């Protein structure tokens, strides 16, 4: 089963190539760094090949007065040509042009924009314009596009966008597509504690994929922040923790959840591990195989020791199925495949 990082990469590549993520399923066998490298090269192949052609257009546009140029851009050039030339103009000139264009047109342009070539422009874009475009992108469900700009938009603008977007789960979905993990640290730090709690809670009670995106965020940020987010999660009511276990099973991401649980307080760990004693045999077996394959058997042993009933149930099941929790990961993966 693909990891969360692999899924995010395939979704972003599919968006770039204009095809469905399902049509690229076969790439999920590649490790996430190889997929990222593939996507970066594909981006360069898609955007850099025509660069020379657009430099001429950008140069020519400098000769026209703004009111005339704006009219030509909206009526004749359209968003695709506009996006390709935007990053080649002096930043202030591009901002002056954008100031005269409608939000819908700017949003269309944003979807076609290559964030690498327009990073300086995006970073300097006026906050109210960024908020207006982001709101329109949300309305169109263009979350991958939003994620592509997280690294280059100013923190001030991101703060304003987060305040303008009421949908907590949606913010999480956008963060799933961010490129730079260190940027996620800065963004999460901007969120008030109540909002942060609401965001994770809404993901925990949403569908399994949304919970996967929340886990991806918790596992991606730096360790101090990750521990803080894990502590927020560990305090959720039992019914929500039950749901988290089922969602984790549905997306096959026990190897992501277990290290998160490991950073929780003992009391929180006790609440989660205690729930394992009442789970179905199928869920527990699947979890055992996944954690052993990920080399986390010993971590599970240590966590399970906190609750006698869960510990006994897991030990019995592992013994009956011949699953060694301290088996080296490579051997365990082989066994999991043949099971």
């Amino acid at each position, binding site marked *: 089963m693909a990891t969360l990082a692999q899924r995010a990469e395939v979704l972003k590549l599919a968006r*770039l*190539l*204009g*095809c469905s993520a399902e*049509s*690229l399923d*076969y*790439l999920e*066998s*590649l*490790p996430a*760094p*190889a997929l990222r*490298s*593939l996507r*970066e*090269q*594909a981006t*360069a*192949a*898609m955007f*850099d*090949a*025509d660069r*020379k*052609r*657009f430099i*001429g*257009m950008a*140069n*020519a546009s400098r000769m026209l007065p703004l009111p005339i140029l704006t009219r*030509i851009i909206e*009526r*004749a*050039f*359209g968003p*695709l*040509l506009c996006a*390709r030339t935007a990053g080649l103009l002096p930043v202030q000139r591009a901002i002056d042009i954008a100031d005269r264009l409608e939000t819908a047109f700017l949003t269309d342009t944003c979807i076609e924009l290559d964030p690498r070539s327009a990073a300086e422009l995006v970073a300097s874009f006026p906050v109210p314009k960024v908020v207006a475009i982001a709101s329109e992108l949300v309305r169109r469900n263009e979350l991958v596009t939003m994620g592509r700009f997280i690294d280059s938009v100013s923190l001030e603008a991101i703060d304003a966008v987060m305040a303008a977007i009421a949908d907590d789960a949606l913010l999480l979905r956008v963060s799933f597509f961010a490129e730079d993990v260190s940027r996620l640290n800065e963004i999460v730090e901007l969120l008030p504690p109540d909002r942060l709690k609401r965001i994770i809670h809404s993901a925990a009670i949403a569908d399994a994929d949304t919970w996967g995106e929340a886990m991806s965020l918790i596992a991606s940020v730096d360790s101090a922040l990750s521990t803080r987010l894990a502590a927020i999660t560990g305090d959720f009511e039992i019914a929500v923790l039950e749901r988290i276990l089922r969602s984790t099973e549905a997306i096959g991401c026990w190897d992501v959840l277990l290290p998160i649980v490991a950073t929780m307080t003992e009391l929180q760990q006790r609440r989660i591990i205690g729930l394992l004693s009442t789970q179905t045999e199928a869920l527990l077996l699947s979890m055992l195989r996944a954690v052993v394959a990920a080399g986390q058997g010993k971590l599970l042993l240590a966590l399970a020791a906190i609750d006698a009933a869960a510990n006994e149930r897991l030990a019995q099941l592992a013994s009956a199925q011949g699953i060694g929790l301290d088996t080296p990961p490579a051997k365990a993966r082989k066994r999991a495949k043949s099971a």
Partner: protein
Amino acid sequence: MSASDHEALRHALGGTLPQGIEALDAEKTERLTLALRDARKRQQVQIEAALQSALSHLPALLRGPVRKLFDA
């Protein structure tokens, strides 16, 4: 993945192969190469159509010089 599969993918990616891509078998490599080529072709068609549309809005006298700028 054979040398010719390598070469076709390298070409579609504009020069070099990303690290780790050799793990794909020949069939998957071919599918990826086709997906990249299709995307690039679609993009070129869109750019050309956008340019034609842009030119059609300009006075006839200006179309030649603007087209030259774009094809430079």
